[in-house]
């Protein structure tokens, strides 16, 4: 006896629960990171060797703050998707695997939170 509805059977993607979701999110963030990384490189070179005052001035401007926030959020999201694959590939002990997966997510949220808080603090000086 199977209590699953036909729709559930269609949507049920086995143990992964997600189908191509992870693959797709990794690609979308990768494409978004193409222009964002070019902008980030442009900014890093442009700020290299300058002082703190210049950096605060540059990062306090709304567009620059938003772009830096977008770069931080997108790259860290892409990072957590990538690290998840590494863990899936190499860590086979169930307990360690769950622990590491949660650790990666928690670290990702922490890194993003710190970046955004710092950016808000820079903008409100």
């Amino acid at each position, binding site marked *: 006896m199977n209590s699953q509805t036909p729709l559930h059977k269609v949507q049920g993607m086995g*143990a992964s629960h997600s189908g191509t979701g992870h693959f797709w999110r990794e*690609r979308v963030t*990768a*494409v978004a*990171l*193409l222009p964002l*990384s070019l902008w980030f*490189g442009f*900014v890093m*070179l*442009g*700020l*290299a*060797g*300058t*002082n*703190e*005052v*210049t*950096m*605060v001035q*540059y*990062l306090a401007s709304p567009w620059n703050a938003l772009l*830096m926030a977008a770069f*931080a959020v997108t*790259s*860290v999201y892409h*990072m957590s998707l*990538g*690290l998840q694959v*590494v863990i899936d590939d190499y860590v086979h002990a*169930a307990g360690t*695997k769950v622990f590491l997966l949660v650790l990666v997510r928690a670290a990702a949220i922490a*890194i993003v939170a*710190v*970046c955004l*808080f*710092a*950016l808000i*603090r*820079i903008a409100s*000086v």
Partner: protein
Amino acid sequence: MADNPQKPGRARPLSPHLTIWRWQVTMLASIMHRATGMALSAGAVVLAWWLVSISNGPEGYDSFMAYAAMPLGVIVLFGFTWSLAFHFCNGVRHLAWDLGYGFDKHIATRTGFLVLALSFLIAIACFALVWTGHAGYLQ
């Protein structure tokens, strides 16, 4: 996370590992993509540290620069620069594959060499710009 349904203690056959293959540039690029991705995770932490140091005012930023200006700091920053350049270029290669382009064996080999050379070129160019005083143009 299914546990091995076989009886425990029985040696399972393994597929051939890294050490048995002749190295190819496609294989190297694939491994480097994962390695640089992992290195850039540490880079994300440094990005957060850098932003916090700026938000802490001149003294805070000086404390970051004290580490960044050390020989080890410069080497690490070069590592992040090259990692980002490689992961970016090889990422474009992967996205092209996803769209069905460049998957031919000989083209994949050529783009593998291209991506490796380009990544070092970009990283060295970035540091050359800084050291010759051509960076810092946002001041």
